[in-house]
């Protein structure tokens, strides 16, 4: 039954992504050629990250290193963490090359974006820390559970990493402006 639910969820997710991409493609050609290239490279590096982590996980599993950890891991937890890491790599690359939504294009957009994302990330991070302190990371069988604190932590990282990169880029890396 759980497998059916997962299959349905994944199917709906894929359909949603395809529909979303089709709608966005029609309505939004706001990325120019350089940004499109940057985004393609971002996807490439994200894919490479995912493949590398999957290979690393398979190797770790083969030599049974994972069994030596202080907690157990469900396979879906590992897969989701790997997937989210690859997304984060893609987003980080896009942000660094001004190809992430309007962050590099509209003058003050990045401030509003950072504020919003920082708020979401901070809320999730606080929630994750509180849940960890309450001992909600591991279930009764000793497995690290994806729900609760771990998912909050993943979401917090997903939001805070792009924000941090944007802030570093804006504050420390001075773009060559007009004379």
């Amino acid at each position: 039954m759980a497998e059916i639910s997962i299959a349905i969820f994944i199917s709906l997710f894929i359909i949603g992504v395809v529909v979303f991409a089709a709608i966005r493609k029609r309505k939004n050609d706001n990325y120019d050629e350089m940004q499109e290239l940057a985004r393609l490279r971002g996807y490439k590096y994200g894919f490479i990250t995912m493949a590398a982590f999957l290979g690393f996980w398979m190797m770790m599993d083969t030599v049974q290193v994972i069994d030596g950890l202080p907690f157990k891991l469900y396979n879906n937890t590992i897969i989701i963490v790997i997937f989210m890491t690859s997304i984060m790599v893609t987003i980080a690359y896009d942000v660094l090359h001004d190809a992430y939504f309007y962050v590099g294009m509209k003058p003050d957009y990045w401030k509003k974006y950072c504020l919003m994302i920082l708020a979401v990330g901070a809320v999730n991070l606080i929630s994750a820390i509180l849940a960890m302190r309450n001992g909600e990371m591991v279930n009764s069988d000793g497995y690290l559970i994806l729900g609760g604190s771990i998912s909050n932590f993943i979401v917090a990282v997903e939001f805070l990493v792009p924000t941090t990169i944007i802030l570093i880029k804006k504050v420390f890396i001075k773009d060559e402006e007009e004379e």
Partner: protein
Amino acid sequence: MKNLRLKAARAGMDLSQDELAKMCNVSRQTISAIEKGDYNPTINLCIAICKALGKTLDELFWEE
């Protein structure tokens, strides 16, 4: 390699990078990258830039 001819042509028309970018329907960062030599534009963008600045492809993009 920096494209100083592009920068000079843009300055000659008293256009900012942002203004030229808008005329060519690209972002300011793209124009900046082209001028710095960090990005090679497609032929379509080269043509758009030439039309915006009233120059030929040779004048702006042919290697000396």
